[in-house]
């Protein structure tokens, strides 16, 4: 691979940046993941409040966006091993609150790294993690934290996240590819955040998002989810609570 082919760019650098980023999101996430209300209500804040923490990777040969990265600064006043169970949803809201209140941030959190399906398995994820670390370093933060989504856990929905994060490959690195990318870049696993993202919908919505049917109450395995979802027919409600893993990059 030509080393100069892929360049890290900022939102201002590229026309229609958000449309192109949306295209990656739609192509790399299962539909239900696009229905987390905290993400949907606050996504614009990433660009309105924290533009310097957003970036993408441009394929200069084709002028296509190959990957995107989102992160936020926030103020953490507890030890790293007390990072909350609310993971992703929590840190997103905390960053916005801190910004509204004029609180000076002391740490950065990853929100997302997504690689366009056409560009996966080419080592771009490691470059994206490195670029995110570089932002944190430029801001003078000592740590970059990440509520990491171990995406291969979707094949192991009946295994607890606490067990899953202990699985290792032949080299002694994490079994999960995304956990491994962060570990290779120097990050350590802190602990799981069991309620990193909560997605609720009516039965009809879940049927539309997953193309499955949910005729009775109970747990269901759905494609792309890290845990089963719970369907309550009487309340016309389905709930998915996604576990992630807090990882810390010490800079």
């Amino acid at each position, binding site marked *: 691979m030509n080393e100069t082919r892929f360049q890290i760019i900022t939102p201002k650098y590229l026309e229609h940046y958000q449309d192109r980023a949306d295209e990656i999101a739609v192509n790399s996430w299962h539909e239900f993941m696009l229905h987390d209300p905290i993400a949907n209500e606050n996504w614009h804040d990433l660009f309105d409040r924290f533009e310097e923490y957003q970036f993408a990777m441009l394929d200069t040969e084709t002028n296509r966006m190959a990957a995107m990265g989102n992160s936020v600064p926030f103020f953490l006043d507890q030890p790293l091993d007390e990072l909350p169970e609310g993971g992703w949803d929590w840190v997103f809201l905390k960053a916005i609150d801190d910004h509204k209140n004029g609180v000076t941030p002391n740490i950065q959190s990853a929100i997302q790294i997504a690689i366009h399906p056409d560009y996966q398995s080419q080592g771009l994820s490691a470059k994206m993690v490195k670029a995110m670390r570089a932002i944190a370093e430029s801001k003078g933060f000592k740590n970059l934290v990440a509520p990491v989504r171990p995406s291969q856990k979707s*094949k*192991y*929905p*009946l*295994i607890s996240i606490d*067990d899953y994060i202990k*699985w290792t490959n032949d080299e002694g690195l994490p*079994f999960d590819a995304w956990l491994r990318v962060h570990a290779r870049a120097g990050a350590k696993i802190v602990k799981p955040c069991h309620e990193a993202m909560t997605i609720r919908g009516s039965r009809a919505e879940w049927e539309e998002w997953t193309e*499955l*049917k949910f*005729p*009775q109450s*109970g*747990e*269901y*395995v759905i494609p792309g989810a890290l845990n*089963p979802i719970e369907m309550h027919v009487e309340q016309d409600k389905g709930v998915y609570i996604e576990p992630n893993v807090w990882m810390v990059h010490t800079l």
Partner: protein
Amino acid sequence: MTSAQFRILDPVELNLHRDEIIQLARESWPEFMWHDTVAEENWHEFFDRFGDYQSVLLDVRTNQVVALGHSLPFRWDRPLPELPEEGWDWVIQQAVQDDKSGAERNILAAVFVGVREEYKKSGLSRTILLSFQPTARTHRFENLVIPVRPNEKLNYPLTSMDDYINWKNENGLPFDLWLRIQHRAGGRVIKVCHKSKTVRGTRAEWEEWTGMKFPQSGEYIIPDALNPMEINVERDEGVYIEPNVWMQHSIA
């Protein structure tokens, strides 16, 4: 599609097309299903022992096998609701044993229906299902029973089979496509057979069959299985027990 496009092979032709027929069957089931020891040890019996009971459909334009149904006769003197929990595995062993002992057979069991990928949605699974009728009639059997594999349950591995078979679509017909085809062809549910097929293997074998890893003991969802399977790391063993549904078709 015209009826002249397809014809059923006779027992001599069956053996001429044997490799092609086995290949088509293999493509219809996930790899792990072929490691059910009853299937492994007895598949050849469809050709060697029960040649008169096989429905293999040839596309006469391409001379290609496009759909197939395997059935075999056995003896059953008790009420149908007493058919065993071990459904598929049991009926194949029973049929072989009855044939060896020369027992007088009085009922037909269909144990496999497969359709070539390019021919799916052509109604050929129904054609195969109906082809068991003349087979049973020739032998003066009054009933055809089938330990049915409701294929779409693979999307619902956490739902019990007992619940799943009661699911209906908007028209009040069975939710599952294959159960629905059987229903429309006159089939009626007798009961669930919870241990219809049993597949055992070492951890390494299961990893090879599924392309997954099993680092710890516990239940796992594996692609194309109707229920979770269970891994026991200490015993180096994985077990999958497949539930099926006993269905009955009257012979017209």
